[in-house]
C-alpha cells in the first residue's frame, strides 16, 4: 500500500530480519494476479527448504520465487464464465490482500493518479503461498477447510483469511475457527478479518481466541469529490472519482423527475435511480440526483454523464463508480436537491477526487464489525485494528475497475475498503514479528501485536475496545514487546473445558487426556490472554480474579512495575505489582482483580507493565452484557 505503513510509523527503512525471505505467508482468498509488479521475484533466492506445497501450474498460471505455491479449491458448484480454473484471481480481492501483506516495493503506484506512492506490503521479502477458495458466488466451507488442511501441512508461517460468515457459530461448528485451531496447534497464527457488519454490537463473526481478529480503521487521508452547482456553490462529497469532466457544467436533473413510465415506474421509484427506473431520453447527457446510494448501474444504464447521491452512508469510506459521482451527506444533499427542484435549467459539474488529510485518523470505520464476543463474553474481541479504509494495493487485470457493464477500465492498482484490507496489514505485521522471533508461538506473536498497539480513544468510537480491541497495530514496536502473554494448546484445552466441551470432544480435538474439573469453569478468566474482559448483567456489581503469566523477552535483567488506569466504576488490583526478571525467557505470574459496578454500560481501563523501556499494555473492559 502507498500510505498505510508510513502512517503507522513503519517506514521503508525499518530494521529487517535476514530471514524475512524465509517467511511464507499463506493467503486464503480469491487467488492472485501473478504478473503484478508487486509479486516480481527479481532478487529472490531459491524457495525455502521447509516448503512442502505445490503450484498448480497451467497454461495461464505459473509461480515464481515470490509466489512459491498456488492451489485452487472448488469441490461443489459451477464455475462462472469469468472464473479462471486456476489460482489466477478473476476478482481482485486476493491480489489486493496478498500485496498488502507481502507485496514487493513498486514506485509510482496509483489509481489514475490517486493515492500515488510506493506500494509495498508489510514483509516485502517474504514468500506468498496462494490458496484460492473464493469464487464468483462466495467462499464455501468445504473449500476453506481443504485449504487450511493443505496450508498447515505445506509449511506456511502465517495464514491470512479475509472472509467470514454473516452469522456467528460455535467454535467447532465454524470452519475458520477449526482451521485456525489446527494452525495454532502447528505453530501457525491465523489472522482473520473481524467482518463488515458494524457498527451493531456483537456483529463480529471471526472471534476464536486462538486467532487474531482484526478491525478496520482509517488512515490520515480521505477522498473528497466536489460538486459545483450552476449557482457557483460547491459541496464536498465522498467517492473515488477518476473521471475528469474538466469543470464543464452539465444539465442537472433529479431522478424523481425522470421516471421510466414506459416500464411502469413512477417518480417514487426513479428518485432512487435503480436500474431501469430512469427515462433514458430525460437523463442522457445529464447529471442525475439520486435519493440513495447504489452501485450507480441505473444512471450509467440511462446514459447519465454523472450522478450525485445523497445518503447517510459512505461518510467514512469511498467507492469507485462507473461514471463521475459524488456521495453527499444528507444536509448538503437536501440543499442540492432544493437547487435542482427550484432552479430553471439547473446545472452542475463533478470534479476529479482530491486526496485530503483526515485529521481524525485513526478511527474504526463504521462498517467494521464490533464486539463483544458473541460466544465467550469474557474474551475481548476484536483484538486490534489496522488500516482498512481506502487502501491502494495491487489488483487483478482480469476485470474492469467497477462492476458497471460499460466500464472497460483495467487497472493494476485499486483502492478498496474492508476488514479484508485491515487483516493483511496485521498478517504482514505478524510475519514481521515472526521474522525476528521464528520460534514464537501464535499466542506470543498475537500478544506482541496487541500489547504494543497504539492506544486509541473512545472519542471517535463510542464502542471503544469493542471497536478497536487493544488499539492500532504498531509493527515496528511489535518486534520488541518486552513481555509476552504466551499460550499453547494445553491452555486452550482448559479454556474449552470451561466452555462446556466434553472431555470426549476435547480428546478428539486436541489429543489431550485432560480431565475437565469444575475449577475449569473459571478458565476463561485464566486463559493467558493479552487483554481483560469482564461481563455482568446490567445493574450488578461483579468482581473476578484473572491469573496471568508473562515471559521476559526484553532485557535479561529488568523490573517491571504495574501501572493501572482505572476510571470511576472500575477497580483493578494487581498482585504483585512489581515483577523482577533475571534472565530472558523467565516467566512471572500475577493476578489481576477486576471489580465493576455497572448500570447499562461499559467502562475501560488498562494495565501497563513498565520497565522504563517497554510499556506492555493490556486493555481492561467491564461491561453490562
Amino acid at each position, binding site marked *: 500500500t502507498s500510505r498505510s505503513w508510513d502512517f503507522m510509523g513503519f517506514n521503508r527503512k525499518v530494521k529487517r530480519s535476514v530471514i524475512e525471505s524465509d517467511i511464507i505467508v499463506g493467503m486464503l482468498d480469491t487467488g492472485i494476479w501473478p504478473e503484478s509488479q508487486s509479486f516480481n521475484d527479481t532478487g529472490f533466492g531459491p524457495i525455502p527448504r521447509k516448503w512442502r506445497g505445490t503450484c498448480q501450474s497451467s497454461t495461464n498460471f505459473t509461480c515464481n520465487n515470490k509466489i512459491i505455491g498456488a492451489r485452487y479449491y472448488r469441490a*461443489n*458448484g459451477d464455475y462462472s464464465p469469468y472464473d479462471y480454473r486456476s489460482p489466477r484471481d478473476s476478482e481482485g480481492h486476493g491480489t489486493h490482500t496478498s500485496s498488502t501483506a507481502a507485496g514487493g516495493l513498486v514506485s509510482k503506484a496509483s489509481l489514475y493518479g490517486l493515492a500515488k506512492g510506493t506500494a509495498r506490503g508489510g514483509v516485502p521479502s517474504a514468500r506468498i503461498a496462494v490458496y484460492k477458495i473464493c469464487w464468483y458466488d*462466495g*467462499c*464455501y466451507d468445504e473449500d476453506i477447510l481443504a485449504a*487450511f488442511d493443505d496450508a498447515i501441512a505445506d509449511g506456511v508461517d502465517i495464514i491470512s483469511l479475509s472472509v467470514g460468515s454473516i452469522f456467528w457459530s460455535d467454535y467447532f461448528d465454524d470452519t475458520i475457527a477449526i482451521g485456525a485451531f489446527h494452525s495454532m496447534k502447528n505453530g501457525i497464527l491465523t489472522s482473520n478479518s*473481524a467482518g*463488515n457488519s458494524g457498527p451493531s454490537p456483537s456483529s463480529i463473526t471471526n472471534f476464536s481466541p486462538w486467532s487474531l481478529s482484526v478491525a478496520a480503521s482509517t488512515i490520515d487521508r480521505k477522498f473528497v469529490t466536489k460538486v459545483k452547482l450552476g449557482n457557483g456553490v460547491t459541496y464536498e462529497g465522498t467517492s473515488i472519482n477518476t473521471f475528469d469532466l474538466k469543470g464543464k457544467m452539465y444539465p442537472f436533473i433529479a431522478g424523481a423527475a425522470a421516471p421510466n413510465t414506459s416500464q411502469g415506474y413512477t417518480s417514487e421509484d426513479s428518485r432512487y435511480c435503480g436500474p431501469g427506473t430512469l427515462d433514458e431520453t430525460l437523463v442522457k447527457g445529464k447529471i442525475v440526483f439520486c435519493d440513495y446510494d447504489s452501485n450507480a448501474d441505473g444512471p450509467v444504464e440511462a446514459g447519465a454523464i454523472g450522478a450525485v447521491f445523497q445518503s447517510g452512508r459512505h461518510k467514512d469510506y469511498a467507492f469507485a463508480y462507473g461514471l463521475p459521482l459524488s456521495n453527499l451527506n444528507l444536509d448538503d444533499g437536501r440543499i442540492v436537491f432544493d437547487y435542482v427542484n427550484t432552479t430553471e435549467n439547473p446545472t452542475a459539474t463533478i470534479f476529479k477526487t482530491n486526496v485530503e488529510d483526515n485529521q481524525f485518523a485513526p478511527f474504526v470505520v463504521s462498517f467494521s464489525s464490533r464486539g463483544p464476543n458473541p460466544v465467550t463474553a469474557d474474551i475481548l474481541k476484536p483484538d486490534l485494528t489496522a488500516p482498512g479504509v481506502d487502501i491502494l494495493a495491487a489488483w487483478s487485470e482480469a476485470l474492469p475497475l467497477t462492476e458497471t457493464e460499460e466500464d472497460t477500465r483495467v487497472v493494476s492498482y485499486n483502492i478498496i475498503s474492508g476488514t479484508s484490507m485491515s487483516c493483511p496489514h496485521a498478517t504482514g505485521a505478524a510475519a514481521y514479528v515472526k521474522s525476528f522471533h521464528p520460534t514464537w508461538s501464535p499466542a506470543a506473536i498475537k500478544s506482541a501485536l496487541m500489547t504494543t498497539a497504539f492506544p486509541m480513544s473512545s472519542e471517535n468510537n463510542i464502542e471503544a475496545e469493542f471497536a478497536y480491541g487493544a488499539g492500532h497495530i504498531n509493527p515496528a514496536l511489535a518486534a520488541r514487546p518486552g513481555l509476552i502473554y504466551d499460550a499453547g494448546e494445553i491452555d486452550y484445552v482448559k479454556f474449552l473445558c470451561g466452555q462446556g466441551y466434553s472431555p470426549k*470432544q476435547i480428546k478428539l480435538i486436541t489429543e489431550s487426556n485432560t480431565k475437565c474439573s469444575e475449577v475449569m469453569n473459571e478458565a476463561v478468566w485464566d486463559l493467558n490472554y493479552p487483554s481483560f474482559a469482564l461481563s455482568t448483567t446490567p445493574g450488578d456489581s461483579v468482581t473476578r480474579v484473572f491469573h496471568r503469566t508473562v515471559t521476559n523477552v526484553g532485557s535479561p535483567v529488568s523490573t517491571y512495575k504495574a501501572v493501572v488506569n482505572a476510571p470511576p466504576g472500575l477497580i483493578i488490583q494487581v498482585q504483585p505489582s512489581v515483577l523482577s526478571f533475571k534472565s530472558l525467557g523467565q516467566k512471572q505470574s500475577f493476578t489481576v482483580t477486576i471489580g465493576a459496578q455497572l448500570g447499562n454500560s461499559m467502562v475501560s481501563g488498562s494495565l501497563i507493565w513498565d520497565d522504563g523501556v517497554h510499556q506492555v499494555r493490556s486493555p481492561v473492559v467491564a461491561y453490562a452484557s
Partner: protein
Amino acid sequence: HGSSDNRKVYIVYMGSLPKGKVSTTSLHTSMLHEVLPGNTVGSDVLLYSYHRSFNGFAAKLTKDEAAKLRGKDGVVSVFLSQRKQLH
C-alpha cells in the same frame, strides 16, 4: 448449495489426525458406507477427505444421514456448509 436429491454439503469434523498409520480416507469412506443407502461413495458424495493436518471430511448428505454421523464415535461436529463472504 447441494444437489437435486435433497443432499446438501455437510462438514464432518473429527478433530486431530489419528495416531499411527491410519488411512483416514478409508475411515471416512467406511463411515459414509455405514450411513448411506447402498454402497455408493463416489467423488460425487465425498467431496474432500481432510487428512493432512486434521481429521474430517466434506460430503453430500441428507439431513438423516448427517444426524446418524453426528452420533458416531470419533465425530466432534457435523454442520451444513455455509457460503462465506469476502470482507
